[in-house]
């Protein structure tokens, strides 16, 4: 990573972001870097425009999504995210995961649907918790907050995987 995404947008390292403002910055930077607007320049200049725009697009994609933004900031702050194995079932979810696996095994559509809804509700709950943590970090800059945030993100990822597993369209 050559440049920090926050710096790329000329933004402070904050987790709460005004999306309308971010979009405005994205459009302005696109007008500066986009390869279409450098098509008549030399080959190295065009390659540079392509490269800058790729980073801009990657940065925008990351920062506009709160979950990706949180993961990115954690990595910047030296935390490992998503490396933790998701094979171990969090104890508080044992029962639900067992139910989902049973339903999947029996291809019991209503049961799968019910399990999915339960997990989706859980994910929404976590999303709220995550957003609450954002304000906490922005004001306090406390590493404890980041550790909590990482816990939430891992849990969210685990639940998302379960939902994806239940929703595989080509499941036989």
């Amino acid at each position, binding site marked *: 990573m050559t440049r920090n995404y926050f710096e790329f947008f000329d933004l402070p390292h904050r987790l709460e972001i005004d999306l309308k403002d971010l979009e405005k910055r994205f459009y302005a930077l696109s007008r500066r870097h*986009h*390869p*279409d607007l450098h098509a008549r320049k030399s080959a190295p200049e065009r390659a540079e425009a*392509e*490269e800058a725009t*790729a980073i801009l697009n*990657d940065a925008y994609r990351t920062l506009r999504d709160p979950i990706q933004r949180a993961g990115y900031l954690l990595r910047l702050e030296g935390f490992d995210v998503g490396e933790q194995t998701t094979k171990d079932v969090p104890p508080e979810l044992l029962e639900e995961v067992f139910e989902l696996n049973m339903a999947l095994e029996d291809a019991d559509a209503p049961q799968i649907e019910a399990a999915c809804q339960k997990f989706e509700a859980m994910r929404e709950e976590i999303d709220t918790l995550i957003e609450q943590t954002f304000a906490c970090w922005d004001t306090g800059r406390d590493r404890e907050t980041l550790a909590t945030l990482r816990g939430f993100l891992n849990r969210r990822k685990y639940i998302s995987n379960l939902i994806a597993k239940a929703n595989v369209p*080509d499941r036989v």
Partner: protein
Amino acid sequence: MFQIEFENQGTVVGIDLGTTNSLVAYMNVTAPDVIPGEDGDKLVPSVVSVGPGGEIIVGNAARQELIDHPDRTIYSVKRLMGHGIADVRDELKLFPFQIAEDSESVIRVKLGDKTFTPPEVSAFILRQLKKNAEAALGEPVTKAVITVPAYFNDAQRQATRDAGRLAGLEVLRLVNEPTAAALAYGLDKRQEGIIAVYDLGGGTFDISILKLQEGIFEVLATNGDTHLGGDDIDNRLLRIALEDLQSEWGEDLSHIGEAVQTLRRDVIRAKESLSFLPVAHIEFEWHGKHYHREIARELFEGLIKDIVERTLGPCRNCMKDAGVTPEQIDEVVMVGGSTRIPMVRGAVEVLFRAKPHTELNPDEVVALGAAVQAGILSGTVENQLLLDVTPLSLGIEIYGGVVSKIIHRNSTIPASASESFTTGVDGQTNVLIHVVQGERELAKDCRSLARFDLKDIPPMPAGMARIEVRFLIDANGILNVTARDARTGKEHSVDVTPSHGLTLEQVEAMYQASIDHAEEDLEAAQVAQARVEADRILLAIDKARRNDAWSGLATEERRQIEDAIRQLQSVYHTDDHHAIAAKIDVLNQSTHHLAENMMNTAVSSALKGTKI
């Protein structure tokens, strides 16, 4: 004096390389304009025929060949672009093409006794469009923007770019067809809004949802089916007509190319009239026998209902991916000839709850948009900018044949991702990376894109090597891969084997082989250019005759000019651009004094009008 000097930047043309028809357009000062062919037709049918002497026939002339010599003629070649033989086996049952024996990862089509790859066939069409543009613009055309279906994968995009290269065109940008259509509608005038573009062409279906704000067209999501289009509707009608003939005449005509092509033409006529009449007729003559069938719109709609419905699933998924509801969509744009079918329009209206735009000709709108994009690239169109997305996720195959996605679909392009690779056993010197495109979990269910071999890794214990690979999907939607040794920081070589495409070397060899044709084309362009210049000077002299300066010339001088005009006219219609240029020079010499006189008259009349 009469030669207007202008800096020749070379016009960048916009090309819609369609399944059924192809068009070329350019920015005519402030608005895009389609350039017609020699026959005056704006649509060049995407049909290519190889004559008995090996000569290439393209367009309307080739369409007749389709009936007279189906074994030497090909249509809808776009459906074969970027495909291997296994991909299109089912489809080929309905197409009368002869596939050469050695077709595997790249299809080779037999036309007469020659074989061609789909990019070569497409290049013939492009070459024709290039010629049409050169004749109209009076200058060589070497740069183009070419449109592709939004849902085209990497191999299909590369095949299109290869076709451009083979036709002697520098492809400045591949633009997605629905996005181009949005540009053509000039919807930026409405400042802000969400636009859906529904594009049902001859062979492909695309749906794109865009957000428009301050001249920026940001594609939010795209979806589609690269094997769904008007051809499928034709095949339905064709099938029932063939069944009729089988039962009425007791003859199976489905293996007689000439009969099938004639019948295809006749059912297409009936299909087209059903768009504005409640009943149409299929009329078919074959060896003195006559077949007639009445088709009511109701029956036709029953026949194509499932095809129309197949387009709605991608539309719903696209809205979901874009995060919009039907109520949020402000405008719907219709593209492609098949959107003339009332049932298609009705279905779109119901789904998006908005009356679709049909003001622009659905056959021309993509080419017009391509010309606008050409204008953006050459700087003549300001303030507008397209931000497009990649239609399919990019992934690499990991253990157990599972796909690890590295760039997700609907990511704005250019987009990039970096991955680190290492060796699995001691002393291993190369790592093979398999890149796929698609949404499925397993690599075998996705589209294989290419295999990249990272070679010449210095031997060391397993896991010690660290090669950083950067995947970049460029603004054309085409993947570029670079690798760097993370320990030394040195660029690492990447050896690419495309799964369904031509290698750089193959394209280069084909291009070299086609240079002969290219020279002929250049010649034609130079002749056209010389004639435009001749027109310019002849016109200027005509105007000068009414000027006072003309009467101020000596009789001898006037005689010389008249003589030079006659000389120029005598070579004007030859194909010798050197001769035309030489006569233009003679004429120019003879008008020196006239030019001086005119200048003086202009100055004196300017002085007269000035108050001192």
